[in-house]
Structure formats: C-alpha cells, structure tokens
C-alpha cells in the first residue's frame, strides 16, 4: 500500500474527534463507553502510523505494535470493568442514562 503515513494520521484524528463528539453528546452510558473504545482505536492507528513511519526497509520499528498490544489489553479491561459498572448502575437505577446517576452533582 503506497499511501503516505500522513493519511493514516488524518484518519486517526478524525476517528478520535468522532469519539470525543460521541462521548460529549450521548447520554447512554453504553454508547459513551463505545466512544471511548473508538478513541482508543484511533490512538492505536496513530501508534501504527508512527511505527510505519519509523520503520526502515529491513528493520521494522517494533515499539508501535508492542504499545498497540498493551492498549488493546487495556481497552478490553476497561470495557469489562465499565460494563460491570453499567450493570451495577442499572440494578440501582433501572436506567443507563447518565442523568439518572447525579447524586454527587459534580
């Protein structure tokens, strides 16, 4: 694929911006969590684009892929804990809207 790495970065920033928009705009906690996953994926893409940029012909740069492996693991962990919290919230409030949990009034 002969696409310049800039375009991977552009795609990454666009995906991240959409993730931020979803995080701010939606009230459903599950969709909020999905927006976070989207942002983590955009970060992964940026890591890989950077790694591609710094790879020499016979010597691939491995830090990007290694970090992506760690980020994927953390994203899975975050999803598991987040969904458990959503289940706990639903048990308490019978709702998964963020407005239903406003006791602390931050």
């Amino acid at each position, binding site marked *: 694929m002969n696409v310049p790495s800039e375009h991977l970065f552009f795609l990454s920033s666009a995906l991240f911006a959409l993730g931020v928009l*979803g995080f701010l705009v939606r009230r459903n906690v599950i*969709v909020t969590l999905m927006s976070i996953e989207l942002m983590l994926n955009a970060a992964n893409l940026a890591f890989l684009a950077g790694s591609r*940029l710094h790879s020499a012909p016979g010597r691939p740069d491995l830090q990007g*892929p290694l970090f992506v492996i760690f980020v994927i693991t953390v994203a899975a962990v975050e999803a598991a804990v987040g969904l458990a919290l959503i289940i706990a919230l639903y048990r308490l409030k019978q709702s998964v809207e963020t407005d239903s949990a406003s006791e602390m009034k931050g």
Partner: protein
Amino acid sequence: MAEILFYVLSAVALLGALGVILARSPMGSVLSLLGSFFALAVIYLLAGFQFLAAAQILVYAGAVLVLFLFVIMLLNLGQLGTRFQLSLAPLAGPRARLAVTVAVALGLVGLIVAQGAAFGAPPPVGDAGLDPLPELALGLFGRYSLPFQAISLLLLATMVAVVVLAKRQRKEDGR
C-alpha cells in the same frame, strides 16, 4: 488498487464511527462500531501489520463487542433511547459541543502538520509485515517484560473487580 481500498475503508471506518453517534438504539451503535473495527483491521493489514489485524478482529470484534451486545441484551436496552442530549452543563448548547469537537480535530491535525517535515515515503513491507511475531514476542518477554507482567496483574485485578461488582444481587445486601 490497495490505495483505493485504503480510502474506501477509511470512509467505511468514519461512517461506522458516525453511526455509533447517530444510531438511536445502542444495538445500532454496536453494529456500526463493528463495521468500523473491521474496516480498521483491514487497514492494519494493508499497512503491513498482519498480527495486529488479526488481534483487532479477535479482541475487539470477538470479545469486546460481544460483551457490549451481551450487556445490551441482558439489560434489554435494544429499544430506542434518547439521542442528542448533553449531560455536561458547562458544555451545553450545540455550538459549544461543535466547537469542542472542531478544536480537538484541528489541534490533532495541526500537530501532524507541524511535524510534517518528518514524513517520507512508507517503507516497503516484507513477507513478515511490519510486526513480525518472533520479534514481537522477544520484545514482550525481553525488553518489555515489566509492562507485560504489570498488565497480567491488571487483568487479574479486573477479573476480581468484575466478579465483585457483578456478584451483588441487591443493594440491601451491602457488601
């Protein structure tokens, strides 16, 4: 050919991301996210990251999104919900939230453009791709063995935390 495929897949990934925000039901959001993740996996493959493309599909599409679907179905949230209501009071109003998004996007693009001098032609991708597994494994168990063990600890802690969180039957039960 691969270039055209890349741009088509980028469009699919962005449309999927847009679908996550625009879908009225959480189920639609999950399916849009699935499309976006699959497009991203093929982009990884095109860019030369073969193992990570497989990991993307296995972990995200296979585990994380199934978990999302499981919770949506368990809590019976498939019906239509509220759509664009903002929960953050300081950011209320459509202009402010558009401004935040545009600012984030412009900031990221500006950061990239500012470093544009560093960009060059992409390296040729060999048979092993840009993430050859033997080297990755050596990195994980060699130089990065400390973060690797930390993340195993994190996974264990997560398992315990999720069991504790999900075990409680009623709020009267206390702990």
